[in-house]
């Protein structure tokens, strides 16, 4: 199987915003000579479950011959890149181990395969829980593939405003959630408006500043308790990492910064579609420029009460998702919203497909995983979690299929994806809920 190779850095990005009208140059020959392309991994999450009957394939003739459900129609052009599953159950959330209500347990385990620690987060119904007890899939994969890009990973939120367990999907470690960037203007600044390193004497000045800062960390260290020492060591490491990464430039033939989108309100329902597009444009560019190889995109938060005023007048999503099965009007609205989320992914895939890489495009080298924290809102079921996997991870995963499992653990499902990137990641997730990799996902 093909693995991502390190791409040598040739050119530093020259300047900040003003120069961005020009392509961010990198020698074409260098990239053309690279035998392989880096793999990328992006997770998507949107809340409150899906509409099961419109999610799973409508007609199934065989594993490889099926008709997409209504929700997946926006992805029809990419059908051969999809891998759909049913019967992948969130054993973690269904067990008595760990804490929290169904939305909390669902979102905590969704990409971590871990139960929730004890804690003080209260969900809308009074359940209490803390953070997930382990790193998320995107982060363990970033550890393996994100090392040589400016950002090890990017966490993006589309009106993801709750700073509690339902507002986080990415974790760098146990109880260590990563906050998302909600404002595309800020994301733009982070990606493109910061000179990688100050030129000439500026670089040596910054180096002198950081030397002094590291000395201060060193001075304080002996006075700290063990826990604080760990905490400040981790902080020191992040500063070192930042310093190293600031020296990494952007490059790639399709590395062209988009216009900066400003004036969107990250806390506005109405702006959500614009924020989504701005984020996805920036993320595609970040991938084209190899500024990052791993990202997570979270739309709102678990148990949210958002409306979709640009789509319908159906009111807030959580109550709507609780409608009885016979309430077809409500379920049509929810189906429309679920389709919208798939259309956003299709848009992102289109953007990746426009980035040439060797004989193919960046889309060929990207794996996308979408998931929601419960299967369907009106049951709060943690059975048959509607995960959607897109991309073959360099020929490892066999796509264009719909696989049905009797009762697979979502931890095994996640570990199987992790291991497609690096076999040492097969131990991903809480061991109590693991029975073995789902090798039928592989080619």
């Amino acid at each position, binding site marked *: 199987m093909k693995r991502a190779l390190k791409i040598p850095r040739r050119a530093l990005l020259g300047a900040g915003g003003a120069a961005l009208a020009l392509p961010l140059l990198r020698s074409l020959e260098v990239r053309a000579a690279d035998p392989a392309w880096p793999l990328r991994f992006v997770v998507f999450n949107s809340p409150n479950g899906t509409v099961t009957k419109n999610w799973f394939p409508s007609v199934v003739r065989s594993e490889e011959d099926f008709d997409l459900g209504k929700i997946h129609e926006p992805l029809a052009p990419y059908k051969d890149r999809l891998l759909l599953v049913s019967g992948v159950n969130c054993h973690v959330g269904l067990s008595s181990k760990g804490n929290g209500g169904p939305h909390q347990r669902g979102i905590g385990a969704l990409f971590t395969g871990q139960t929730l620690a004890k804690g003080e987060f209260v969900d809308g119904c009074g359940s209490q829980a803390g953070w997930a007890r382990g790193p998320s899939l995107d982060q363990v994969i970033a550890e393996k593939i994100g090392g040589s890009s400016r950002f090890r990973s990017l966490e993006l939120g589309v009106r993801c405003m709750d700073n509690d367990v339902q507002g986080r999907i990415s974790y760098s470690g146990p109880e260590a959630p990563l906050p998302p960037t909600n404002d595309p203007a800020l994301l733009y600044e982070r990606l493109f408006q910061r000179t990688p390193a100050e030129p000439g004497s500026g670089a040596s000045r910054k180096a002198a500043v*950081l030397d002094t800062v590291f000395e*201060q960390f060193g001075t*304080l260290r002996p*006075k700290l*308790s063990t826990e*604080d020492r760990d905490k400040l060591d981790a902080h020191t490491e992040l*500063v070192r990492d930042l310093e190293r990464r600031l020296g990494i430039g952007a490059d790639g033939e399709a590395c062209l910064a988009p216009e900066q989108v400003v004036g969107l309100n990250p*806390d506005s329902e109405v702006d959500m579609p614009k924020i989504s597009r701005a984020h996805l444009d920036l993320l595609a560019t970040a991938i084209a420029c190899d500024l990052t190889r791993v990202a997570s995109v979270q739309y709102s938060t678990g148990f949210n009460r958002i409306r979709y005023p640009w789509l319908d007048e159906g009111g*807030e999503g959580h109550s709507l998702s609780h409608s009885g099965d016979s309430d077809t009007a409500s379920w049509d609205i929810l189906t429309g919203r679920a389709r919208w989320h798939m259309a956003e992914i299709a848009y992102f895939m289109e953007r990746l497909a426009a980035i040439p890489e060797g004989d193919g495009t960046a889309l060929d080298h990207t794996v996308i995983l979408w998931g929601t924290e419960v299967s369907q809102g009106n049951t709060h079921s943690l059975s048959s979690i509607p995960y959607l996997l897109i991309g073959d991870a360099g020929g490892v995963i066999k796509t264009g299929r719909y696989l049905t499992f009797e009762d697979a653990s979502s931890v095994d499902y996640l570990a199987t994806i992790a291991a497609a990137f690096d076999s040492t990641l097969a131990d991903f997730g809480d061991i109590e809920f693991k029975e073995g990799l789902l090798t039928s996902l592989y080619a």
Partner: protein
Amino acid sequence: MTQAHPQSTFLAVRLSSFVGWIAFCLPLLGCNEPPGSPADGSGGAASTGGGPSVACEEPPLPAPFARLLTRSEYRRTVQELLGTTEDPTVTFPEEPEVNGFNNNARSYAATPLLVEQLDLAASKLAASAQARAFSGLVSCEGKSERECASDFIARFLRRAFRRAPSSAELVSFETLYDRVASGSGHAEGLRSIIEAALLSPQFLYRVEAPLVSEPLAESRELPLGPYELASRLSYFLWGSMPDELLLARAEEGALSTPAGIEAEARRLLADPRAKDRASEFHSLWLKTNRLPSLARDGAPAEFGRDLQRSLLAFLDDVLWAGGTIRDLLTTEVVYATPAMGAFYGYATDPSAPFTRVVPPEPRPGLLGQPALLTRLSLANQSSPIQRGVFVRDALLCSPVANPPPSVNNNPPDPQPGLTTRELFRVHTEFAVCAECHRLIDPVGFGFEAYDQLGRYRTEQEGKPIDVSGSLDEVPDPAMAGSYTGLGELSERLTIGNTVLDCVTRKWLEFAIARAVSPADSCEVLASLDGGSSDTPLIEVLVAITKSRPFRMAPHSSETTP
């Protein structure tokens, strides 16, 4: 004044590790468990408000974790330190929210995004100080550039690190100055000092070690060092760095006695900076930050922001006018913005941000505030559940256990012909729901005279509103029993010191950035003779600063240099 509790030995062992501590502090009140039983952790509370002989458990104090400045603390600190109005924190990620508070020292840690933004903020702040020619920061008159720089380093680090810098720290920053200034000049050297200081852990973190003059053979509790205590005071009451006077008092040893601490606490509370900090506490305690973005059917545009300001103005008034729990719960006043006046039918002054209105309908205190009633609602109906849970969590510190994960706990949608109370009948009809909901719903039903936007109503779906309810299995049996309407519920909550004890715990958690137990608040209230609903709330803040959990910390032989 310690009176051994039967469990104290057991607790001491449990509390020796922080994990045990957390476990102890969790709400362990089972739905069927009578309050006050040993398992619910309230055994140590000074629940009857007795006399000076209030006995508290005084469990061993956990070692404080290093405290990373929160966004608001960082903002106020750099503004004070550099004499600027810039706010670089708008791009910082939100702190994790633990038990409602955003400063939990254990949970709040650096993330890649935060470190990236801190670096950017330090660069920008240092560059803009340079652009202002370091005015107000550096004075070089009659000195060589090198002397001027040394002088600046000593003065600036003392303020940035909130203590006298060590000679090693001075040398480190002087070396930095020399390295940069030799190639790029004096101004670049000064800018680099500011940038490095703002990235140093001594600035970004508060490490709260007790003062130890010589190594101790064994671990024991000691008062915090004077600088650490000065910072605890200023960050608790101002959310910012100590001022010059407070640093000077610390250096004189004025903070070595509870009386000295009290004098400084009262001085800080009299400063306008305390107002902003108290509003921050109120926002976190009552979760008002969610109000501006709440979706509510029928709400005028931007209404949530008005409601938030209105609630904070009410709380401000109660706290700073020397108000008590009784005032908090029973004062019938609403601070109405013009938009609120139009919506609720109050006469307001259109040119003033708020008009102090005494509403014609019943609006007992905090629970009657339109903002709170709106927050504790669903988009299309009131929520007796959220309202009942709020009373138990935020006012009684006596939460009910979680629903089991298998339960479908979705609120029913409004049905024509049914009142909200009738909609939730299912909770009492099924034993499995009733087990817990009997402790929640009958508390929330007393709020039914107010809809999802806090409007007063006397009927719903053509039926008269029934505002009868009951308060059961609460920490103080004297407040238990059935009641009619929000006014009577609010009066009931003023019995004894239960609500004061709970609010004290919230303030203390905010002050010391860790989960606290009833034993902690017991110690705070002991200096107020246990306190009551007639204790001015401002006195609770003063009492916190003098209490053992605030001013002491364990000294561990492990960390002795």
